[in-house]
């Protein structure tokens, strides 16, 4: 029972702190001192130190145990009714996800704290919602049955819609409605699929569902359930042809939250796909779904990159790269190999960091009124540090070595070759050349074109701190990826151990 507490502590911590944030902010704002921002920073650092300790505690406890089982299944209730109970699942994947979610969210929240828009400072409510979402995302990673996963994941989506709505402009309301409609359709699909799964197997617990499905004789109902669940989660991960909501939603949100959404919620949606498709729902031995998703992944890579190629608004361009990234993640998921899972998990971190870095730097540019490609003319000399960070992000996206994105792409493509899908690897390779092309076009505008007005623009120094934390991380991970790959290694061993 005590382990249940360990698993739920990070979630409880985030939710509790989220509720405390509004009153604390009220108190801090009343003090009207100039050091307001330092106090707020101190508050967030406390939150993240406490929650990191809880996550680290979970990880240490998990790895200290010489458990022959690859995972721990922690039910809220024991006894005969445990089968209906909400469950937490602790295995190497979920521990890893909890670690990177906590780490990445720290940087993005610090960024939003320093990002003071010209019109309005972000309120206490905004931070409360963000902390709540982090709690839910960690909950998603630790969920052990379909219902718990569903609840945490839909809570994440609901919270995200608050972030998109935050600016309350016509554009953001439009984007939020689009997002909500898509998400509600998706959850309806998922719920329908889950009810069918429950009807077949009599449980929603991940491992029991898996065992029941492997022994299933009549697969007709399972096919229906699979289509609904897969479609639902595909919509939430913005796989082409269900991608239309993503660019609007991410660009409508205030800049700090687009970084946050892409770094956390987006990566969590891939995690859900990975967990549901590979680990739980249907190993390809039960239903041959890999080809379907391979085609979808090729489509996603092509469409995402082509849309980015034609886009002139840089923030939307980054949003399209997020879509293309779904495609690259799917390549690894469809390969269903240990190497692919390793690539996925590494991609969740590097993709998250890189998109977050890109959104952060573009956010700084946007706040100076630099929005379209043409506006970026000559900013390389006017704002050297911010531009340098954006260039690093661009090379990481393009998969150039010595930057974090390279190793992720290498693992992804190699896993496709391992799964005998060389054609998918070739499509991926060709689309990443397109990716390099439009990113270089951006760099070309930044450094080669003459600016409209000469003179340096003053760069916001505080914002450069979180930006350069991420930029340095990208370079360090690029040169020495073993830091993360050693963390992922147990996952591979567990995957091979799995029944």
């Amino acid at each position, binding site marked *: 029972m005590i382990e249940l507490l360990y698993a739920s502590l990070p979630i409880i911590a985030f939710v509790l702190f989220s509720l405390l944030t509004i009153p604390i902010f009220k108190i801090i704002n009343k003090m009207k001192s100039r050091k307001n921002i330092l106090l707020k920073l101190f508050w967030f650092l406390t939150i993240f130190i406490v929650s990191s300790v809880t996550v680290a505690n979970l990880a240490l406890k998990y790895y200290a145990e010489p458990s022959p089982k690859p995972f721990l299944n922690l039910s809220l209730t024991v006894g005969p009714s445990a089968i209906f109970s909400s469950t937490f699942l602790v295995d190497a994947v979920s521990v890893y996800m909890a670690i990177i979610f906590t780490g990445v969210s720290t940087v993005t929240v610090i960024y939003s704290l320093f990002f003071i828009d010209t019109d309005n400072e972000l309120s206490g409510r905004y931070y409360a919602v963000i902390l709540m979402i982090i709690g839910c995302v960690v909950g998603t990673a630790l969920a052990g049955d379909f219902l718990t996963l569903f609840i945490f994941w839909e809570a994440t989506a609901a919270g995200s819609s608050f972030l998109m709505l935050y600016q309350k402009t016509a554009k953001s309301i439009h984007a939020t409605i689009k997002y909500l409609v898509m998400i509600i359709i998706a959850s309806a699909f998922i719920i329908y699929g889950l009810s069918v799964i429950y009807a077949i197997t009599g449980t929603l617990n991940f491992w029991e569902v898996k065992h029941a499905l492997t022994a299933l004789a009549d697969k007709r109902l399972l096919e229906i359930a699979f289509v609904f669940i897969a479609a639902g989660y595909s919509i939430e991960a913005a796989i082409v042809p269900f991608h239309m909501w993503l660019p609007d939603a991410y660009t409508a949100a205030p800049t700090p939250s687009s970084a946050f959404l892409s770094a956390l919620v987006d990566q969590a949606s891939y995690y859900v796909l990975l967990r549901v498709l590979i680990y739980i729902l249907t190993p390809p031995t039960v239903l041959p779904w890999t080809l379907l998703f391979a085609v979808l992944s090729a489509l996603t890579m092509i469409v995402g990159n082509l849309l980015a190629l034609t886009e002139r608004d840089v923030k939307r361009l980054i949003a399209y790269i997020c879509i293309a990234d779904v495609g690259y993640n799917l390549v690894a998921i469809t390969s269903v190999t240990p190497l692919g899972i*390793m690539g996925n998990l590494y991609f969740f971190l590097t993709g998250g960091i890189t998109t977050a870095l890109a959104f952060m730097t573009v956010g700084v540019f946007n706040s100076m009124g630099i929005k379209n490609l043409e506006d970026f003319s000559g900013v390389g000399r006017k704002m050297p540090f911010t531009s340098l960070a954006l260039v690093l992000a661009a*090379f990481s996206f*393009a*998969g*150039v*070595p*010595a930057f974090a994105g*390279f190793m992720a*792409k*290498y693992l992804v*493509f*190699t896993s496709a*070759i*391992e799964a005998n899908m*060389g054609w998918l*690897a*070739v499509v991926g*390779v060709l689309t*990443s*050349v397109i990716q*390099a*092309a439009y990113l*270089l*076009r951006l760099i*070309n505008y930044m*450094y*080669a074109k003459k600016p409209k007005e000469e003179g340096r623009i003053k760069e916001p120094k505080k914002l450069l701190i979180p930006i350069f934390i991420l930029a340095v991380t990208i370079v360090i991970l690029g040169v*020495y*990826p*073993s830091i993360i*790959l*050693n963390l*992922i*290694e147990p996952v591979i061993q567990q995957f091979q151990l799995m029944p």
Partner: protein
Amino acid sequence: MQNTLLLTIILPAAATLFVYFLGKKSSKSAALLIVLICLANITLLSTTVPTILKAADHKYVESYYWIPVLHASFTLFVDGISLSMAIITLILILAAAIFSINYMHEKKGLAEYYALLTLLSIGLVGVFMTSNLMLFYFCWELMLLPSYFIIGGWGYREPYRAAFKFFIFTHAGAIFVLLGIGAIFMVTGDLDMFQAKTALMTANPELVKWILLSLTIGFAVKMAAVPVHMWLPDAHSEAPAPMSALLSGVIISAGAYAILRVSLGTVFPAVMATGFGSMFLHGLTVFGIITAFFGGLIALVETDIKRIIAYSSIAHMGYVLFGLSLFPFQEPVTGTVLHLMNHAVSKGLFFLSAGAVMKQLEIRDIREMGGLSGKMPVTATASTVAALSIAGIPPFACFISEFLIFVGAFQTINIDNFYLIPTALMLVATVLSLAYALRFLSHVFLGVTKHEKVTDPPYFMKTAMIILAVLTVALGVWPTFFTQLISSASFV
């Protein structure tokens, strides 16, 4: 010493920031710091020569912990071929840095320029010195990034356009290399070239065929073989002259070296005995001839001073491809590697002297030049040495290596008479190179002078040219040291 090779990588890596901050104060001292680093690295590398010549497998290897999950260790090694290429690379970087002191001095942002040059030297030297494919790929792309920014930032006319073309072409090529490396890892479970070579012997030959093709296409882009040469004339002619010297001297040679080391050295033995093996080599021959003729013919009609030299680089990569296609005989392999070195030095010298002419005259069309030999004696001598070496005239460097390649070709004809016509055609191509070299000299340096007030370039530019000119003659007169080193490395 224990960590000689690691030091040669760490030294420039650690120096990059120093160079940057020193460059903020005085760009000249930054350049001299680079010269010092190159000299130190050359000394470090030459300490391994006795080991290489004495050791049973003629190798010197160091290995460090890096990414054990992927079987990628930080393996640095040199054998005769790697060592010769690395030393020539360092000499060229040294000359480029010295040349830059005068050549670049009125440009802006020189601190960044020299820092990028230092970064570039890591990739350039590293690519020759590793046997781990992952590390190899890292260095391979590390050549690309700084050169992109150097061409874009300090080039001529529309530099970022040329740099973009360069980046996209070679990056696309590199990504095919990556596919090949990934496939090798999949098939053999190892990323070390020498381990993979043995493991590939037992692999499915159908798959090995695709790996070989994918790798070779990727490397050929860097090498600028026709029909994937389109990036080269723009990149080489728009880059600042020291960068052109490095591009033409080292970067495209790295492509040829990679074909020799990875495609032919690692993957090819697995399919050598099959029909595909000889088909592959014959394919290399055909592309070599096309490349040599294409480059030579266009160099004959170009009028832009740097584009002539750029196209002559394409032509020479044709010889190299032809030499590679004679694999695995000892003479042509030695000849090809020696030609890579000699071509690097001569072409580096050629680009530097063309840069000197451009800098002093501020025009680039050779029809508007003429009679400069009296006004710029040092530059004229350097150009003549370079041009005659490129044309393959004794006693200059390229003659020996071309000769070795042709000796190899005649040996190969005895076994495979497919090579009869290609060898004849390649001999014709050497006449082409003599033609464009003489045309260049007569247009630029001979005839009636149209520019009265021209003088030789300043001190440092002259020094750089003299260093390379002396080396070109020295390599031509006494190639024994390097031929010994190169032929100590065995491939068969």
